[in-house]
């Protein structure tokens, strides 16, 4: 039960980070991993492979969409971008996260 709840939290966090990384513009999968590391000041390192099932889940929900294009090094790559629904979801996720983080902090600081 604890494992399931923990996994759910981690998956939700990864989804939010993916949405956040795409808020600045389209990126391919590798670029998303790099961007998450960059915006978290290298504090968050996700297992690179686990990023892709996350991307496919978000695309299935209609929060991101993808198309093949040419990357900076002239290779074909699949680029992801946020949809309008994805932008709305990111706002919801950020608000939920802030509420959860402040509630957890309050609980930790309680006597």
């Amino acid at each position, binding site marked *: 039960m604890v494992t399931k709840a923990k996994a759910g939290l981690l998956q939700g966090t990864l989804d939010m980070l993916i949405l956040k990384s795409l808020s600045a513009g389209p990126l391919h999968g590798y670029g998303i991993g790099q961007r998450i590391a960059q915006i978290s000041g290298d504090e968050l390192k996700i297992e690179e*492979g686990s990023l*892709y*099932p996350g991307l*496919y889940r978000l*695309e*299935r929900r209609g929060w991101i969409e993808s198309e093949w294009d040419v990357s900076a090094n002239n*290779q074909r790559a699949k680029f992801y971008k946020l949809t309008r629904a994805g932008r709305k979801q990111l706002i919801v996720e950020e608000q939920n996260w802030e509420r959860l983080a402040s509630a957890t902090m309050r609980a930790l600081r309680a006597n």
Partner: protein
Amino acid sequence: MSLVKPTVDFIYAWQHPAEIADEVEAELRFHMQMRTSANIEKGMTPEEAQLAASDSFGDFDRIKTSCCEIKRVFPIDMKHIRMGLYIGLACLAGGVALIAVNLPHHSPFSVLWQLVAIAVLMRAFLIGRRKQ
């Protein structure tokens, strides 16, 4: 509507599983190439860079299978469809019951309609209970 494209992708994924598998593989291979190049830039030999890229990526085949399976998952939440089904069944049961009470009591059709109404209501009740 944001679910149109996921639904089209879902249908395509079921019709063309081999193309989807190739597409997923190409995407994952691109990631591995990028990671290998970055490792070489950090000073690793090509062999070391490839090995390190493979280690940091995880189980390639498992991830590829997982991505292909996600592509074949129906994009619309089944909860909403199930809810619609319950409402439809309840309306049907109500309609049949309404017909049954409006038929003359001596008519054999009245008894038949009442039995149908009871059967539909029982069915809706049993489905509702099973899903809980």
